[in-house]
């Protein structure tokens, strides 16, 4: 919500700046809201024009929103890890790539000044197979595990079930997993990698590019299911992530540097922000989703520009005699230009607002259908508004030539 308040404040300042340069301030000559009246002169056509521009705005908003949602889906699990720094194997290139390292590095991390705690996360992506409790069909799944005495996940349901997770062969499953995973309420008994497992609760994560569903277990259950070989007494299992919480009063970067010093070269120490950037970067370069939605946004922009050009051109053509009259009365071109640009901005705003309303509604529905974290963030909305305004102004600039060329003598 914070970003919205911040954004609203920024818009307010922008509007105030606009008002101070607005041609309608002061001077009786500017008292007639010409652009406003021009726009309202034909209500029926106005409705059609606005719906055209609204469509383009909606299109761009959804495309940008989808793009962000796809990338966001890959970040959800990182957002739900309670820590400031993640320690991994240095060759690990993304969250969902099995690349474990020795747990003793975690104890080395403990000793570093400023580390409040360093806790393990275990992960399995290749071997884990989930059986849909209803259809009994099997699908690969992502399994994450932690020590219930050292909680690392922020999912409230996981925090509430620590006690029950200590029971052997229990797990929490993702209630937003793809439909093919079936419904596994608390008490459901199904199979994970051909072994019986009891579901004790659900959390909400949702699928991403690689994982269609997620299961969270305790470290003991996890090792029973996925340890590459039986571990000798006292032997430590390899871990996927070391989650480090920085002690209050210490800067994350300082602790990160100290950890890098303390740990060998085959261990990478990244802050959570760096992990978010790494994962975003991976999705941007590797998956085709970024370019596809960029293309979609560009199409929305071009189409919107064509629509708003048509709208403005038709408006200006119809009102050409009026413009010519104004010119004959001695109004300068700059005044007319300003009126046209103002009208274009009104169109942008008038089209954008219904577009936004529909987009917010659609986002709710589509988020449920696609299981993506689709929401109209401030960034998405602001980008779309800028694009909508840009396309209307650009179209106005193109259509303007007609007004500038209007010769009072020709028109009548």
């Amino acid at each position, binding site marked *: 919500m914070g970003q919205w308040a911040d954004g609203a404040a920024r818009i307010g300042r922008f509007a105030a700046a606009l008002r101070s340069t607005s041609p309608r301030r002061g001077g009786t000559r500017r008292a007639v809201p010409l652009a406003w009246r021009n726009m309202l002169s034909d209500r029926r056509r106005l409705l059609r024009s606005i719906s055209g521009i609204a469509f383009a705005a909606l299109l761009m908003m959804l495309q940008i929103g989808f793009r962000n949602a796809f990338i966001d889906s890959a970040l959800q699990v990182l957002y739900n890890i309670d820590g400031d720094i993640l320690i991994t194997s240095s060759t690990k290139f993304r969250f969902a790539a099995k690349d474990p390292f020795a747990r003793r590095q975690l104890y080395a991390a403990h000793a570093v000044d400023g580390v409040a705690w360093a806790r393990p996360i275990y992960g399995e992506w*290749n071997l884990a197979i989930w059986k849909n409790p209803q259809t009994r069909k099997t699908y690969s799944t992502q399994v994450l595990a932690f020590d219930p005495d050292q909680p690392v996940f922020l999912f409230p349901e996981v925090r509430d079930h620590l006690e029950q997770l200590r029971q052997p062969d229990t797990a929490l499953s993702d209630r937003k997993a*793809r439909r093919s995973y079936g419904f596994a309420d608390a008490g459901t008994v199904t199979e994970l990698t051909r072994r019986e497992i009891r579901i004790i609760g659900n959390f909400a994560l949702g699928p991403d590019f690689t994982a269609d569903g997620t299961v969270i277990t305790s470290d003991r259950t996890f090792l029973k299911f996925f340890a590459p070989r039986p571990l000798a007494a006292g032997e430590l299992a390899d871990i996927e992530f070391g989650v480090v919480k920085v002690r209050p009063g210490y800067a994350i970067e300082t602790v990160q540097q100290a950890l890098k010093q303390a740990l060998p070269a085959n261990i990478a120490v990244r802050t959570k922000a760096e992990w978010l950037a790494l994962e975003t970067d991976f999705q941007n370069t590797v998956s085709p989703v970024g370019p596809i939605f960029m293309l979609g946004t560009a199409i929305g922009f071009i189409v919107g520009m064509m629509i708003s050009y048509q709208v403005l051109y038709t408006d200006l053509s119809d009102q050409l005699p009026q413009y010519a009259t104004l010119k004959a009365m001695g109004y300068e071109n700059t005044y007319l230009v300003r009126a046209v640009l103002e009208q274009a901005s009104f169109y942008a705003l008038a089209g954008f607002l219904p577009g936004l309303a529909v987009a917010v509604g659609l986002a709710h529905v589509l988020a449920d259908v696609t299981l*993506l974290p689709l929401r109209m963030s401030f960034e998405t909305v602001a980008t779309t508004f800028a694009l909508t305004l840009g396309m209307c102004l650009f179209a106005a600039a193109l259509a303007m030539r007609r007004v500038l060329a209007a010769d009072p003598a020709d028109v009548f």
Partner: protein
Amino acid sequence: MKTLVAWRIVAHDKGRSGLAIGGVFVAILLMFLQLGFYASVPRGGLLFYDAMRFDLLLASSAYVFEGQSSTIPRRRLFQALAVPQVLRANALYHDRARWLNDDERLARDIFVMGLDLRGVLFDLPEIERRLEALRQPDTILVDTASRPELGALVAGRRIELEQRNVTIAGTYSLGTGFIGLGVALTSDLNFTRIFPKRSLSAVNLGLLVLEPGADPNVVAASLRNIMPADTRVFTRAEINDHEMNHWVTRTSTGLVFGCGLLVAAIVGLVILNQTLSTQITRQLPQFATLKAMGYSDGYLGGVVIILAIIMSTISYVPAAAVAVALYSMVRDATKLPIEMNSARMAGVLAIVWGMSALSALVALRVLRRADPVELF
């Protein structure tokens, strides 16, 4: 006569008409592109099956899609050979391996397929020619479409795959489809070297080639009779449907391109309608004059419809040509089997004509109201 009037209107203001035709051109091109994507992108998931020689496919009953196929006992292949029409049964193994790129010091996942070198699995001379090289231990062939993050893909380079020293024996270019960042081929023996936990007795897929003239459906039926419940038998058509269905309904792919298709259709129709109705509105005084001269509404309607059809057809021809060119560009860049076919060309033309006529009819309503007296 009507056609002449309509043509005169198009030719009258060439600049404006050109602009309108340009707009319609964009709309049609958009439809072609999105249709092409929608039809061909899920086929990216069929890239390997399309390139493989087989009439029937044996897979596990837990088969989800090619990248998640589970395994069946190899003896199912020998059981299949008991059916007289089955000529050959070849095993295909695959798994994901960690490929360590020395330069970047990052490990990436790649998809490795292990082939029985005695069978001719791929219908691609480029691969067949190089298969001999895989008889050497710890060698692989790499697809040149693999991501650049894997480093230089040149014959002779030694890399680390699943913590094993492996040599790139050569490259081929088939494409990686949706299977991952890269694809490598190797022999079944090398496959077990790279994945020591995998055994040759658990195969991912069994590829059956039938006697010439045998009906795959009949053979599939008799195979289903003898196979236990752990094995599924697919004909080519069935595996095509299965994979397409997987990509369209079970992943976001169908959603993304379905969305694109819907948008293209709406946008195309809106532009078409807007442009054509503007063209007609612009000529309103002329139409009103004709009306005043005594021409009937029906006559003017005919002119308008012909005008719309002329304009959309002029736009359609270059749009189809550019679409074919764009298809081949996309095909080269992504290796997706995106191709123009006559059904799509005819379909788009029909939509365009239908929409043109519809826009003309909408514009006619304005025309019907056109009163000569008001206009001057």
